[in-house]
């Protein structure tokens, strides 16, 4: 491999590693960050009080923020596995295919984050008796969005990525 090809390959390697862990930890932390942000920014709760209330309700019946985090993280675990097996097993010498896959997975991840974020914010800002049901349907919705987001990313990659030579 040439120096340029090697540089691209090591960039892709780093991107894959980061993608796996950002997807996994980001999926878990996303709802918790939103919960804290809504308390602090929307409801004007002081940070220490918001943090205390959050930790208190992590395992509290009727709240179970831990379960909410895990439910939201499930589709992101699947995304992490896809990154690992789909992007991680791409041929290192064919950067074009790897970048297309990376853009597809990135687009899937961004779509999932946007939908999950929107649902979490909506449930918190407009609470009602059935609001919590959204948390149970969210993983199914995110898993449905994943292939569409991936397809969109691949289509964008095909249209805009220049032909890269290894």
């Amino acid at each position, binding site marked *: 491999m040439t120096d340029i090809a090697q540089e691209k390959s090591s960039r892709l390697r780093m991107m894959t590693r980061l993608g796996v862990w950002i997807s996994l930890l980001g999926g878990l932390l996303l709802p918790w960050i939103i919960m804290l942000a809504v308390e602090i920014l929307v409801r004007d709760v002081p940070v220490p009080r918001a943090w205390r209330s959050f930790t208190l309700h992590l395992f509290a019946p*009727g709240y179970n923020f831990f379960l909410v985090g895990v439910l939201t993280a499930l589709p992101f675990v699947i995304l992490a596995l896809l990154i690992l097996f789909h992007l991680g097993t791409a041929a290192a010498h064919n950067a074009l295919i790897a970048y297309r896959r990376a853009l597809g997975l990135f687009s899937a991840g961004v779509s999932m984050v946007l939908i999950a974020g929107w649902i979490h914010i909506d449930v918190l800002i407009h609470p009602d008796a059935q609001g919590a049901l959204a948390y149970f349907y969210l993983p199914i919705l995110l898993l449905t969005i994943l292939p569409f987001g991936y397809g969109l990313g691949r289509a964008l990659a095909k249209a805009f990525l220049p032909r890269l030579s290894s």
Partner: protein
Amino acid sequence: MTAAESSPNILSAREIQLHLLGLVLVLGLLGSWYWFSTGARVVPTLIELLKDDDPSTRIVAAEQLGQVGPAARSAVPQLLSQATQDGSQHANTTAAIALKWIDLTAARRVMTHFVPRLHDSDVQQRRIACAVIGSLGPIAKPAVPALLAVAHDADALLRRNALIALASIGIPPPPIGAALVDGLRDSSSLVRQTAVTQFAFTVPLSQEAVASLTPMLNDLDKGIATLARTALDKPRAGDAAHIESLGMMLGHSSARDYALHQLAQLGPEASDALPPIIPLLNDEQPLIRYLAAESIGGMGAAAKQALPALQRHQDSDPVVRAAISEAVSAIESGAVVSAEPFTKELPR
């Protein structure tokens, strides 16, 4: 060159394996975090939280202890103190609710503490007493006569609280149903609305209740009229499909207490659900065993089939033992301590 750099793929097989291992480790860590933060393991921490200055912390701690159930017995003294001495009514009621899942005798002690307060000269104390007794649900059955008296208090808010408490206790159904029917004719619209809400969502309809609710369909207050429609549209005591669905709910741990409480209020009409109730006399939760005994007792002679199981049963909880003994007497004497049979088609 490292192994990853010399690999034909972006990640080498070894690196993929290591990532997978890391992923499993993260999931394992999450599982351990959950395991260490729930169940009996977290009871000492929750007991400490019951001593917190912030009422919302004490409330959440009590709710979590209630979910732990009998394994949180070591929290009983602190919960008793919160139920009876705390300055926050919400903290009182959440501690009382927790106690009914942990220790029925302690829950009854909360009731005994508050019953004399139903006659306190301070109306606010009487309101709090109603709310806390009501939060104990069917465990507060012995407080029904005192609550029936309070349901005629001069203070409308107290009458409302008393009706909510009576509906939440639910047994024995005849006097509670009668008090709620009286509430439908109360001079205060708040009390009338509360009474009709209980018929809509909590207590089964008696024939008298249907007769009183029917004219309310034309009430000038649209809210009351809608609630009356909801009450009259719900399944009736003699509805076999309703009994069957309650019987099925007994198989689900999260709905078991609700289903048993409903069946206990249906009396002999609930006897079709007897087979799945009998095994619940051996449930690990004393509240479930208590409700099973109350349901069987409410069926009277129709529950003869349960007599051998009741006579054989040696319960460790004195409140459950007393309920079983009452159930045996009710079956043997053929007495019916439940709502009147109601099968006739009602006006819609």
